[in-house]
């Protein structure tokens, strides 16, 4: 198939390792995702809170600043802010919500266009499976969401640990909480994002559906809890809201309590069940051709 000869010839050169072939998809899709300036701007904004937190950690561990602060606000000599579970829970919640908004923007572009333009037969007619296709797509989301959740938060954790001797020994569990809490949330967000993207094939509608799903389910759970007959100690309606379920898990992981919530195990079970439903939906939708009965 040389350009000058204009004749077809077969390919007999080397082939890539089939196990890593799914990484071709994120290689191309990442370029597409970052092509949008709006998305790029939002992605950069997601680092502002961790950046601010890093500055805060530095100031709060700086003796000159603390003396100035005490003089300014006339606080006692024993005044000292201790960074613990509450601080990282707050950061986790903020980054978690930003991660959700990022998924709402980025996820629909990943599969909806392929399905709308019948690109799946092109992928699946090659030595490339449906699992590899989904894996390739989910890797993009996992990488993007990791970049704004556990990676900066773990950096902050280590930064705080480097400022105060013995802090990591006392608060080492926060590191695991950050990894587990972020990991579970980004998996849920990615699965839901891809499932909606595969189901609703028009990008803006898919984004709206995702937005509606998270906020409507959260509002509904709160509304049910607010009803006279349902006001009880455990707001079980929260299992239908991924946001509430995740908050319950984070509260447990960071040893904080901000009002009534479902038990952590119920939150984890609800989120895993949601992932299962998304997997089933992806299995139904990610096919070369749908059989119409």
């Amino acid at each position, binding site marked *: 198939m040389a350009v000058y000869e204009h004749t*077809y010839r077969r390919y007999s050169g080397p082939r890539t390792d089939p196990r890593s072939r799914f990484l071709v998809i994120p290689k191309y899709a990442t370029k597409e995702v970052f092509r949008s300036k709006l998305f790029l701007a939002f992605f950069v904004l997601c680092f502002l809170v961790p950046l601010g937190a890093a500055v805060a950690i530095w100031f709060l561990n700086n003796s000159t600043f603390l003396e100035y602060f005490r003089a300014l606000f006339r606080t006692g000599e024993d005044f000292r802010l201790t960074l613990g579970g509450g601080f990282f829970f707050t950061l986790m919640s903020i980054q978690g919500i930003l991660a959700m908004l990022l998924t709402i923007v980025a996820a629909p572009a990943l599969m909806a266009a392929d399905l709308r333009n*019948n690109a799946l037969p092109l992928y699946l007619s090659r030595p490339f499976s449906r699992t590899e296709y989904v894996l390739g797509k989910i890797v993009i989301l996992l990488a993007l969401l990791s970049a704004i959740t556990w990676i900066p938060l773990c950096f902050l954790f280590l930064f705080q640990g480097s400022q105060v001797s013995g802090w990591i020994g006392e608060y080492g569990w926060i590191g695991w909480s950050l990894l587990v809490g972020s990991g579970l949330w980004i998996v849920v967000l990615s699965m839901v994002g891809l499932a909606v993207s595969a189901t609703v094939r028009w990008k803006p509608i898919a984004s709206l559906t995702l937005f509606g799903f998270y906020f409507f389910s959260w509002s509904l759970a709160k509304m049910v809890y607010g009803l006279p007959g349902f006001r009880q100690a455990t707001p079980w309606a929260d299992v239908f809201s991924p946001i509430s379920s995740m908050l319950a898990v984070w509260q447990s992981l960071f040893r904080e309590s901000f009002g009534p919530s479902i038990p952590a195990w119920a939150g984890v079970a609800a989120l895993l069940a949601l992932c299962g439903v998304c997997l089933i939906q992806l299995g139904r939708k990610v096919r070369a051709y749908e*059989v119409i009965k």
Partner: protein
Amino acid sequence: MESVIELDALSVRLGGRDILKALDGKLTGRAIGLLGPNGAGKTTLLHTLLGFHPASSGTARVFGHDIRSEARVVRGLLGYMPERDAFIAGMTGVHFVRLMAEISGLPSREALERSHEAMFYVGLGEARYRKVESYSMGMKQLAKLAQGLVHGPRLLFLDEPTNGLDPPARRRMLKLIRDLREGGETHLIFSSHLLRDVEECCDEVLILRDGQVAAYCDLEQERRANKKFLELEIRGEAAPFMSSVSALGVECAQHSPRRLKMVLQNGMEVSDLYRIASEQRIQLRQVTYKQDSLEDIFLKAMDPGADVGETRQPSPRTGDDHGRL
């Protein structure tokens, strides 16, 4: 001869309906046409070979590899140009083809090189940096062809490749398909409704009807056989001419004083007829090959009274069968 596809009682059931019903056969040609009316099962057969639909019973082999147990190996040998519009939005033509090459396992550099070559080969060299969604219908068809052959498949599935093309684009597509066939580097399965396209490009034809093999025809042998059946218009004494050619083993029949029909035997050429005619001072005013067109074969296969599963074995004809099945 190496078998390209072997069908072994292949059945496919989709949506509660039997779409393919125990297909049997062995296809060996360089370019195999797949014909049949709408709903005959042509596309389902291609999709089943690609592993898109599971076989409900039986199996098939592509170059000896079982589609059920070696699906990944089989797909590694294939290229596929789907019938419907299929592309990845937001990509230029060359990036789209390169992505497909990399998914097929070509390293990035080789994929880039071959994607440029493929785009030039199909005639989209100048448009390769345009977004695929901005291509015209004909250009999209060519881009689909480019992605189907960029990774150098041994067997290329072309599902209705001339659909929606204007006459120049159709001619271009058919020329590319003939080039691919004549290049001898790849085998082709050409699924189409258009008999003429198949006749132009293929050397074997499998006709499906209602999910069953209605007829199989080796067009190459058919063409060779057709060359032996002649209609002659002569001027002069027919009887001595007929007796002379009959003495050489040619079957001959006279339909009118000036019109003869004859079936040449192996080893005999039309030039021999001219020589005999010259010796006997007979004028040959017209010599016509009696063609048995693919349309005749197709219509016969579609005849509700005809048994499905007929395999056409090309054979010398008699003067009575008028070249028909």
